[in-house]
C-alpha cells in the first residue's frame, strides 16, 4: 500500500480564532494539500460541505457563539453530508475532549489537543489517513448502504490490522442493526462490552434490546449509560424512546427536558421534545422547543418546512387552551413570515400555513380575519399556487366552520 500523501487531497479548515486559523492554514499549506478552504463557523462550513466533499476536515471544537464542532459533526454525519471516507479531525482543549469523545454516537475520526506543533499535526493526519486507507473498502460500502459488504470487509481488515479490531467490531455491530439482524448484533456488542468496557458496545447492546422488544432491558441499559457518562446525550434520547414504547410519555418528556438542558443547541432533540410535548399536551413546552428548533434550523442540514409548521401548530394548540399572551401571536407571525420567505413555493406547505392561520384566528375568536385568510387561500388554490385541501384538512375546515 502506498503511503498516504496530501498532494491529491482537499481540506476544509474550520476555526473561529484568527490566530489559530492562520497558523493551521499555514501548516496545511506546508503539508502540500491540493486545496484548502476555510470556514470561520459551523454554519458557513455546512454551506461549503453542501457544495463539495473534502478529504480532510480539520475543525475546532470551540467555534464561538454558534454550533460547536461536535454539533457540526453530528449534523453532517447524520445527514450524510460528509462521506465515511472523509477524515474528520477535531481540535480540542483538554476540557472539551471528553465532550467530544463522550459523544460516542458520532465520534470524530480523531482529535488533537491544543496546542500542537506542525510536526504533531502532520503525524496525526498521516496516521488517520493511513487508517482511512485501510478501511477504504469498508467505508465505501457504508457510504453505499451496502452493509453486507461492509461487514465482510470489516472482518478482513480486523484480521490484517489488529489495532483496528475495535473499530471494525463496531462497524459490524452497527451494520447488523441496519440489516435488522438484531440477535447477531447483540452477540457482537455483548462480547465487545465484556472485553473492552467500551461505552459504544453497551450502547449497541441497549439498542438491540430496544429493537428486539426487550424494552425493560433496554431501559435499564440506557439509564445506566446516562449515569456512566453525562456527556453521552444520545443515551437520553434512546431512554426517552424506550419510555415512549412503554407508554410512559410524561417520564419520557422529563428525560428529554433534561437532555435538552445539557445540549440546548441540538436541533433534532428540540424537535423530539416538541413532538412529545404536543403528545402529552404540554403545549407551552412544545411551543418553546419548536421556537428554539426554528431558530436552530436556519443554518442546519435540517432546514425543512416541517419544523416551522410544527411551531405554528403548537401555538394554535396553546390558543385553544385559552387566552394567550400577544407575544405568542407575534411568534406565530414571525415563523409564518419565515414560511412565506422560504417555503411558499410548495403548494402543500402554503395550504397548511393558511389552514393553521385560520385555526389560530378561530381560536382567538376573530372570525373576520379567519374568513379573509380563507379568501386569500381560495384565490391561491385557483391560481394553482396552493394545493386543494386533503381529506384531513377538509375535516379541520369543517370543524372551524362549526365553531
Amino acid at each position, binding site marked *: 500500500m502506498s503511503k498516504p500523501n496530501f498532494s491529491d487531497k482537499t481540506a476544509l479548515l474550520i476555526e473561529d480564532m484568527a490566530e489559530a486559523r492562520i497558523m493551521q492554514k499555514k501548516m496545511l499549506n506546508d503539508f502540500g494539500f491540493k486545496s484548502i478552504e476555510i470556514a470561520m463557523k459551523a454554519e458557513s462550513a455546512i454551506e461549503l460541505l453542501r457544495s463539495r466533499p473534502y478529504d480532510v476536515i480539520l475543525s475546532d471544537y470551540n467555534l464561538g457563539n454558534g454550533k460547536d464542532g461536535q454539533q457540526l459533526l453530528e449534523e453532517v454525519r447524520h445527514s450524510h453530508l460528509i462521506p465515511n471516507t472523509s477524515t474528520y479531525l477535531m481540535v480540542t482543549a483538554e476540557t472539551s475532549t471528553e465532550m467530544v469523545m463522550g459523544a460516542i454516537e458520532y465520534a470524530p475520526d480523531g482529535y488533537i489537543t491544543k*496546542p500542537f506543533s506542525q510536526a504533531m499535526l502532520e503525524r496525526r493526519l498521516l496516521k488517520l489517513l493511513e487508517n482511512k486507507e485501510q478501511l477504504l473498502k469498508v467505508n465505501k460500502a457504508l457510504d453505499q448502504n451496502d452493509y453486507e459488504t461492509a461487514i465482510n470487509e470489516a472482518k478482513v481488515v480486523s484480521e490484517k490490522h489488529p*489495532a483496528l479490531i*475495535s473499530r471494525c467490531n463496531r462497524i459490524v455491530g452497527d451494520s447488523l442493526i441496519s440489516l435488522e439482524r438484531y440477535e447477531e448484533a447483540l452477540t457482537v456488542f455483548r462480547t465487545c462490552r465484556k472485553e473492552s468496557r*467500551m461505552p459504544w458496545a453497551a450502547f449497541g447492546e441497549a439498542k438491540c434490546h430496544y429493537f428486539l422488544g426487550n424494552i425493560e432491558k433496554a431501559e435499564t441499559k440506557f439509564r445506566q449509560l446516562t449515569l456512566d457518562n453525562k456527556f453521552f446525550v444520545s443515551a437520553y434520547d434512546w431512554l426517552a424512546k424506550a419510555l415512549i414504547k412503554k407508554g410512559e410519555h410524561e417520564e419520557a418528556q422529563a428525560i428529554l427536558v433534561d437532555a435538552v438542558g445539557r445540549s440546548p443547541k441540538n436541533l433534532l432533540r428540540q424537535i423530539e421534545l416538541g413532538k412529545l410535548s404536543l403528545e402529552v399536551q404540554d403545549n407551552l413546552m412544545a411551543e418553546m422547543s419548536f421556537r428554539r428548533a426554528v431558530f436552530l434550523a436556519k443554518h442546519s442540514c435540517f432546514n425543512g418546512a416541517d419544523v416551522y409548521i410544527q411551531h405554528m401548530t403548537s401555538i394554535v394548540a396553546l390558543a385553544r387552551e385559552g387566552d394567550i399572551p400577544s407575544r405568542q401571536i407575534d411568534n406565530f407571525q414571525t415563523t409564518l413570515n419565515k414560511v412565506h420567505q422560504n417555503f411558499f413555493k410548495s403548494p402543500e406547505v402554503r395550504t397548511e400555513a393558511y389552514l393553521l392561520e385560520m385555526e389560530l384566528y378561530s381560536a382567538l375568536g376573530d372570525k373576520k380575519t379567519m374568513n379573509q385568510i380563507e379568501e386569500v387561500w381560495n384565490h391561491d388554490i385557483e391560481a394553482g399556487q396552493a394545493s386543494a385541501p386533503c381529506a384531513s384538512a377538509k375535516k379541520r375546515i369543517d370543524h372551524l366552520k362549526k365553531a
Partner: protein
Amino acid sequence: MDKIDISTILASAIHESKNHLGTILYQLEALKSLNLDKSGQKSLGKIEEGMKQLNDEWVEYLYLYRLASDGYEVLYDYHALEEFLDDQVFALAPSAAAKNLSLEFNTDESLTAVFDERLMTSVVSTGVYNALRFAQSSIHISAYMEDSYLVIAIEDDGKGFAQTAEEEDELLFQKNTGLGLYFADLSAQAHNSEDRKGYIIKASSETLGGAKLAIYLPQ
C-alpha cells in the same frame, strides 16, 4: 457573595493560563519559519520545550483536580501500545534531546489494551519529565502484560527513588512535591475492570539501574 471552593478557583485559573500559553505557543510556531542562526534556533528550541513542559504540567494539574474531585469521566478505548508509545516518544523526544538524553520505547507490536488515552498520555509525560531530571543518559518506556494487567513502565539510569527521596528533605522546597506520583496513582486507580483497580509501583530499574515507575492497568 457565596464562598467558592478555592480548588475550583485555582483549577479555572490554571485553565486560563494554559489557554494563554497555547496562544503563545502558536506564535512561537511562526518564529520557527524565520531564518534564525544556530544559536537563535537553539534558544527558540529551549523556549518551546520549556513552554511545552509547562503546558503538559498544567494539563496534569487539571486532570489531577478532576480526578480528585470525582469530576473525571474515564474514556476507555482500545489502543495498540506500539502506536501509543511511539506517539509519546515522538512528543517527548525533543525535551530529552535538549538534555542530551536518549528516550526510547519497547513493546510487542501486537500488544493492544484498553485504557484512557488522554489520561495515560499525561501520566507518561509526567513520568518522563520526572525522569528527565534524574537520568544520566537514558530513559526507557516499555509496555507489557502481567497477569491480565497492562503495565506501562518508565525507567531511567539515575539514582533511583530511594536516594532522591532523601535529597528532597534537604531541598525542602525544591521542585518535586510528589504530586506527579500522586497523579499517576489516581490515574491508575481511575481505571477499573470488574473488581480490579489500577495501581502504581515505584521500584528500581533492573535494566537501567535507576528509578522505575510502573503503572498497572486492569484488562
